């Protein structure tokens, strides 16, 4: 019993999700009609982007 995703899978998932969220937060920043916490959305997107960078660094130092 092990987690079925490798570090490269997680890296890909993080990258795709971060791109989606960053694009969404950029598009929403100018809109006043959508009432959500835009700062929170941007923070999550940035956190995912940083997560992706960490996986990249891990793969640089430990190539599989």
């Amino acid at each position, binding site marked *: 019993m*092990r987690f079925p995703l490798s570090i490269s899978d*997680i890296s890909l998932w993080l990258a795709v999700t971060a791109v989606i969220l960053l694009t969404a937060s950029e598009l929403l920043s100018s809109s006043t009609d959508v009432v959500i*916490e835009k700062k*929170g959305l941007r923070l999550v997107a940035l956190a995912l982007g940083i997560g992706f960078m960490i996986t990249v660094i891990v793969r640089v130092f430990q190539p599989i």
Partner: protein
Amino acid sequence: MEDMCSGRTEETEDETVESTTTQYPMETIKQLQAEAENSGSELRKARHISSWKIGIVFAVPGALSLIFAILNDSQSLAFIGLGLTFWGALFFFVRPIRYVKSSLLDSTAMSLYSTIDRIVKDLKYKGTLASYYIPPYPKDVYLPEHLRGLKDMIVFISADRNADMPSIVEVAESKFLFENPRGICVAPPGLGLLIQFEKELRIDITRLELSELCESLPPLLLENFQLAKEIEMKTEKNQVHLKIVDSIYKNLYSREENLKSIHFLGCPLVSAMACAIAKTTGKLVKIHRDRISPDGQTIEVWCRFTEG
């Protein structure tokens, strides 16, 4: 006797009719108010729950999918699980903010200006009035107990445009009515807004230079508070020119409201900016003049510094 009795009975009948006619609408009003309150609270509940419900709908299958992925060693289930759990968590985290209609803001500010108009009218101040935003002493400066009132931001509405300022002792006493020079001291209408700006933006305006304030305040107000569509703040010789396009307080300047104090005090947004200028420069700031575009969309205000 019979006449008197019949007279009394008529009176009592009239009273009962009157009381029933007044009671009925009162009861209806109360009932309607209760219904409105109930529907309002239900609406709030529905709005509040919705993001949580969506979060649960995403997060629970996501977690289950992750567990099955680990048990069955399935990659696709793991991707699905990760995605669902993440979006579920995002719905918990990025919840809708409670917004109010902008028209409510100016209607709440209206009473303050009407009150000041009434006070000024009652005190029989004639001619052109002027308001002076008096900068407060910084919070970290020690002042003796009898001068603590100097730490409050106030605006002095002078009955005479070219009159002197009240003495420091009188200002420190937190007096309202002044005889020499004639005028009144009130809290600026935009003080609450300014405190909110400082709190949310985590900046101490007293530490900024005027040029820094003119550069940094308008974009911060637009991006964080959306109080207008466009704000310009330019320093000119001995004054600051403010240009606000499509302010949420623009209705206060309309002719239908006919508020006089709005022109010498400024709307809450202008007042907050005047307070910020006074705090930054440490000088008295007077709303020298204002100009409203014919369509009411653009408000231009000139704030002049004067030495105290």
